[in-house]
Structure formats: structure tokens, C-alpha cells
């Protein structure tokens, strides 16, 4: 079980009701975690965040620069823009800001979810998150 499919299922099931905000949290002792975060955001710039996200998880830990460019090619991305983005660390400031936010909140586990402020640490099945979301939606409509 990984977070991606569960999150996508939630977004499908709760269209228009749930807003998804993703924060990056590359693990500090992984060689390619930061460049992989860059790659996902670079792909996102071209409208293919989830597609890249899925490829990264599928191919982890093969996440070196050349492999990332290969995945970008598989997705039909503009390779010049993609390569410039990851080489130039275009999203480094954004990623660093996310990391600082996590540390400031004393978070160290990925994934960690917040549903209207309710913290859920670690991977969870769809039904687990669904229950929390349903409770929160009920509170909103009260």
C-alpha cells in the first residue's frame, strides 16, 4: 500500500469537496530524494505531477538524474525544460520551505496527512481516511 492510489481514490470520490495540498518531504539521508522531489514538481509544471509521482514510486530507488530524465521522456515531457528545472533546482526553495514546515511541526514520517487539522501518521487504507473525511464534512455542513 502506498499513499498515492489512496489519495487519488479520495480525490475521485470527493470531487469538489476535498482540497488536496501536497508538501514535499525528501528524506535527508537518501541520495536522490531531493532531485526526485524536483523531478515531480518539474513534471507538475508540465501538468504531469501524478504521472511522474507514480513512476518515481514504481522505480524507486532508481532515481538518479539520468533515470529521471528517462522517466520524463516516457511521459512525453519537454525534456529541455525538465532538465533545466532539475539541474537548476528550480523548486529548491519551495522544497526547503516544506521541509522546514514539517520540522517545525515535529513531523518526521512520510506520509503524514492532515485532514482539517487532524493528524494521521503513516500509510492508511482508503476506509480509514474516508471515515475521518466524512466526519469532517459533517462538521462543515453543520
Amino acid at each position, binding site marked *: *500500500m502506498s499513499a498515492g492510489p489512496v489519495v487519488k481514490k479520495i480525490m475521485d470520490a470527493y470531487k469538489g469537496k476535498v482540497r488536496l495540498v501536497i508538501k514535499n518531504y525528501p528524506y535527508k*539521508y537518501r541520495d536522490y530524494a531531493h532531485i526526485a522531489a524536483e523531478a515531480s514538481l518539474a513534471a507538475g509544471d508540465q501538468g504531469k505531477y501524478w504521472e511522474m509521482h507514480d513512476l518515481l514510486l514504481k522505480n524507486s530507488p532508481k532515481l538518479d538524474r539520468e533515470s529521471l530524465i528517462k522517466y520524463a521522456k516516457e511521459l512525453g515531457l519537454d525534456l529541455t525544460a525538465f532538465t533545466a528545472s532539475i539541474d537548476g533546482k528550480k523548486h529548491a526553495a519551495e522544497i526547503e520551505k516544506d521541509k522546514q514546515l514539517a520540522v517545525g511541526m515535529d513531523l518526521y514520517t512520510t506520509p503524514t496527512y492532515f485532514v482539517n487539522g487532524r493528524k494521521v501518521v503513516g500509510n492508511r*487504507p482508503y476506509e480509514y481516511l474516508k471515515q475521518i473525511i466524512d466526519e469532517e464534512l459533517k462538521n462543515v455542513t453543520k
Partner: protein
Amino acid sequence: MSRNNRGFEGPGVQGAKGLRRQDYFFSAMIFCAVCLMICVAEAGHLEPFKSVPVPKNNPQTPEKIELGKKLFFDRRLSGDGTTSCADCHIPEQAYTDGQDISLNYPTTKNWRNSQTLINAAFYKNLFHDGRVKTLEDQALFPMMSAFEMNQNLDFLEEEIRVVPEYAEAFKKVFNGEPSRERIAMAIAAFERTLISVNAPYDRFLKGDGSAISEDAKKGFEIFNGKGKCADCHDGVNLSDDKFYALHVPENPVLLNDPRVTATMRFVAKVYHYKDYRNLKEDPGRYLITKDKKDWKAFRTPTLREIAKTGPYMHNGVLATLDEVIDFFNAGGGKGNRYLKPLGLSDKERKQLKAFLVEALTGEELKISYPEVP
């Protein structure tokens, strides 16, 4: 030795003997709980909460408990500084992590469920496979484990020693400097404060017939009689501390997720199981004893606070109490030699669940978070 509100019992004080059946009958008669008496005659030996066992060589003191609490929440205890004990034993989740398979050291996977620490003080066999006998011995295992906290204990000792607040606290508590043994002793002292108290079940056992609902009373009868739960879930902690191979289905991730498989093989290798690369199931206590009868055997867990401590079983494969009751009602897992189908009706299953949820949930365990130095 004085007692605090969680009933600590120190050296020289008799441990909880519990109510003998005769005593119990007497008190039950006073409160006219006649139906209860009848079923207790069929049950294992059940005891209300009285006090927490404390080893003579590690008496409880407020300073030691506070030090243990700080260490419990300190991420220095993990190799990469990301993980504290509280990550897999989250206070708000009844000191479990609420996952089927426990959380893990980053980039690795665990393979078993994170047990609640509530009432762990009562166990004489710690971990699902009972590999250690005391909380003091238990505390160091996850720190060393490659897939849990992955810390080097020699390094940890130095990390703790250079923190002035810790150096001072260890001197005050132990009259010495930080060491792995003392770290474990302090954490164990903190863990002995995590006790389920004042559950309706305790009041009921002491004779308060109004402590639980009629459904829960029926559930209690089933617990002691037709359901045979009390055959193993007995004593003050509702655990006989013994090991049984109930043939709980394997969690599919054991073989589906290569990282979980790697963890299983690693543990088996550490315990000198020769064919560890071809393992297809969790060998349970067999890895510790190498005794055939212990193949896939796991220790009976406490049922105190059971409503809050799912998912259930050693591998979290049963998500809800309903699933657990169905598992036992069906006679356990295929090929097991301990359980037979119980033939509980839908109504009886609901009543049993009512007892487990309603009666065994104690007072909320409040915690003030420490300031980790």
C-alpha cells in the same frame, strides 16, 4: 512503599492476588449479580486492577518516570534522529500506531503490529514472540533494530551524555552517568505508568452490577463461557502470557512487499533460522525457542483498552473487533490445534463486542508532553 493513583506497588509489598472465586462470589452476592456468579464458575481466574508490578531493582520514582518520558519522546534514540518510541506508540492512539504493520525506520518496512504499551507492565513475556522478560530488556530492542530505530547503542550513550540536562537528570536519578541500561530503566519506569485504570470491568468485578450494560453482562457470560475467551485472557491483565499458534492468516504484505519480506528474512537470519530465504510465513515464537510447537505461536495479548488498539493480531491482519470475533467464532485459522468453532449467534457476537468495548475501556490516559532537551 506508597502507591500513587495508578496503584504502583513497590518492593516488599505483596502483588495483586486478585479476588479468589469464593471472595468474588461473596461480593457478587451482595450486589445480587446472580447471573454473573454462574458464569464465573466456568471462567478462568479473573482479577480487577489493584496495582502495578514493579521490579525490586528498578523502583519507581517521579524523577525517573519524568526522565523516562523525555527519553521516550526523544528522537535521538534513532539512528537518523527521526524516530522516537512515541512514533509507533502514539499516546493519542492508545500507545499503538493504529497501523496493521507498525511504522518503520525510514526506507525500511516493519513486519509486525505495534502493540499497545498500556498494561505492558503486567507481561512476563514481552514482544509478540516473548523474546524478553522485562520492560527494561525490551526497551533497547527497537533502538537497535535495523527496521525500527536503527541506532547504535554505544553512539546513543555518547549522544545522551553530552546533553547537560540529561547528564544532570541521570546523576539525580541513578547517581551516575547515562548508560544504555539506565536509559532502558528510565523508559521502563515511564511505561509502568501507562496503565488502564477504573474500567467498568473492574468495578463490575468488584461487585458493581450497574457498571456495565445488560448487553455487556451477557457478553461477559459469553467471554467466560461459550466464547472461551477467559481460557487464555485471564488474570488482571486478561492475558495468560502464554503462546498459541492460532494460525492467524498472514498479512499479504509479508510476501507482496519485498521490503517486508526482507525484514522477515533478516529477523529469521538473526535468530539462526537456516532456511530464512525461503520463509513464506512468520514463524513466531519458533524463532526464539526452535521448538516445533511454537511454530507460528504468539503471546496472548491483553484485552484491556482493546477498543482502541486495532488493527488486531500480531500482524494487524484483522482490522476490526468484529473481524476478530468472527475469526475466533470460526475456530481460528486453518489447521490450528487450539480453537474450535464457537457457534456464537449474531446477537451473542454483538453482546461479546459490547463487553469488550464497553467494559474494558478505562479512564482516559492523560499525558503532558515533556520538553525534550
